[in-house]
């Protein structure tokens, strides 16, 4: 059938709105001066050199550190949860998954805002602490609050892909192992866990990627004191107006993420990792 042409409008769209913008960012990152006036810019690598400054490298390090921590905690909390849900009867299982997805459908900012009202200085948790006779704690505007916000927002991204792999595991494999005398622990370490690796890989990517690039959680729960790499980009584009440096950071972030995606997919050879939909 000759229906190739139906994709041409999208190919044009893709070139204008996906390819050209990325080329522009790349172009900005290797130039300096006023790019909007042709002839008044020079090619330079200064933007990348500037990023090698310890101040900025520290921001990058902190972003990766927080994102890794939140991914790991999501995994430790999410894997048992996915296992529990996958072993329920089908009706209860579907209801539980629905309950897991439901908060995700609520606006991301409102969910983060909800924690703001809980953790704040006059929030509910501090109210209870004060009632019990202790001094109020400063629970918000620190990196623990940011970590909590990340875990809260991204936990479903870990549970859902693992769950969708776990329910597909052939039950007869487990029965066979049990018949051959494997203990429950052996069944888990030798069969269930290895088979669920594709789900874990997509869970890791789906939590790590948004966590490493977030600037919303940081600016709401970190109170503007904490800089992550996402905040740095936001600051350069919206407040300092240094688009060249901002573009260089974006390019670094993009390359970093594409490389980690590449590494992740290596673990998931057949690309059968369970997605969200």
């Amino acid at each position, binding site marked *: 059938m000759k229906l190739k042409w139906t994709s041409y409008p999208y190919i044009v769209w893709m070139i204008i709105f996906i390819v050209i913008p990325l080329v522009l960012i790349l172009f900005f990152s290797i130039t300096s001066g006023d790019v909007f006036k042709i002839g008044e810019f020079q090619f330079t690598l200064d933007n990348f050199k500037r990023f090698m400054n310890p101040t900025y490298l520290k921001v990058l390090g902190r972003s990766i550190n927080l994102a890794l921590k939140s991914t790991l905690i999501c995994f430790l909390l999410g894997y048992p949860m996915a296992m529990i849900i996958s072993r329920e009867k089908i009706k209860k299982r579907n209801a539980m998954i629905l309950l897991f997805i439901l908060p995700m459908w609520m*606006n991301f900012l409102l969910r983060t805002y909800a924690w703001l009202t809980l953790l704040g200085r006059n929030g509910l948790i501090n109210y209870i602490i004060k009632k019990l006779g202790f001094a109020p704690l400063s629970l918000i505007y620190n990196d623990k609050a940011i970590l909590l916000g990340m875990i809260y927002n991204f936990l479903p991204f870990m549970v859902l892909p693992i769950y969708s792999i776990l329910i597909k595991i052939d039950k007869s494999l487990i029965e066979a192992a049990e018949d051959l005398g494997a203990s429950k622990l052996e069944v888990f370490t030798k069969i269930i866990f290895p088979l669920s690796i594709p789900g874990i890989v997509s869970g890791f990517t789906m939590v790590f990627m948004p966590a490493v690039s977030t600037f919303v959680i940081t600016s709401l729960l970190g109170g503007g004191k904490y800089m992550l790499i996402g905040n740095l980009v936001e600051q350069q584009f919206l407040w300092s107006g240094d688009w060249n440096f901002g573009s260089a950071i974006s390019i670094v972030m993009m390359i970093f993420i594409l490389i980690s995606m590449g590494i992740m997919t290596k673990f998931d050879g057949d690309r059968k990792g369970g997605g969200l939909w």
Partner: protein
Amino acid sequence: MVNKSLKKIYTTLIFLFLYAPIIILIIFSFNSSKSRGVWTGFTFKWYVELFKNEEVLTALYYTVLIAILSSLISTIIGTFAAIGIYNMNYLGKKIVLNLNYLPILNPDIVTAVSLMTLFRFANIEFGFLTMLLAHITFNIPYVILSILPKLKQLNRHLAEAAMDLGATPFYALRKVIIPEIMPGIVTGALIAFTLSIDDFVISFFTTGPQVTNLSITVYSMARRGINPVINALSTLMFLSVLGLLIIINKRTSKDMKSRGDLI
């Protein structure tokens, strides 16, 4: 036995973690004082204020309008694109699909600033149009990815048979292919709609001062401090999502039942 109750406790704790903030938000949307710690009495005044709040209402209008327009346009472009991509040769398919993955894999903020740069470069005024274009751009890849699996399931000979019987390619497309892949198209449109409703980062960078959506309004309100009007808004949004999900769930279970009858 111990194992079982341990599981129950664990499940309860996780769901408590997921729902406690939302439930508290809902409860305090009926609290008469601005405080978030003390209950001072029941009131509907934040809801009344919400519906008088010009800022929130305009934001709601733009959110829904952009979600409808962007999901409609991206579904149309995406459906045709998916059919075209499916009929491409190996290399073309590979190139287009990899480019299609870029907005999905790239961090939101990179897509956002790259589009912002494009609009600035093309000298388009930031506002409704730029935000709509941005939303369509990040929606299409998801539409395509939800339609392609349906095309793979499609019997290749079906369209050929239609054309052998005298249908023009376009007629075969309309009468044979599109109805067969309809479930994928509907899923794609729904994903596009929810992504658009929920988007913050890309809208934040590609809109102008006159046009904001709900996410941007919540962000700027939350940065100014706690506002019980947001609690009322969250409650209403949570209830509408809950209602929507129940309807969808009822529909799909009915679908399954009727399908069961057929078999």
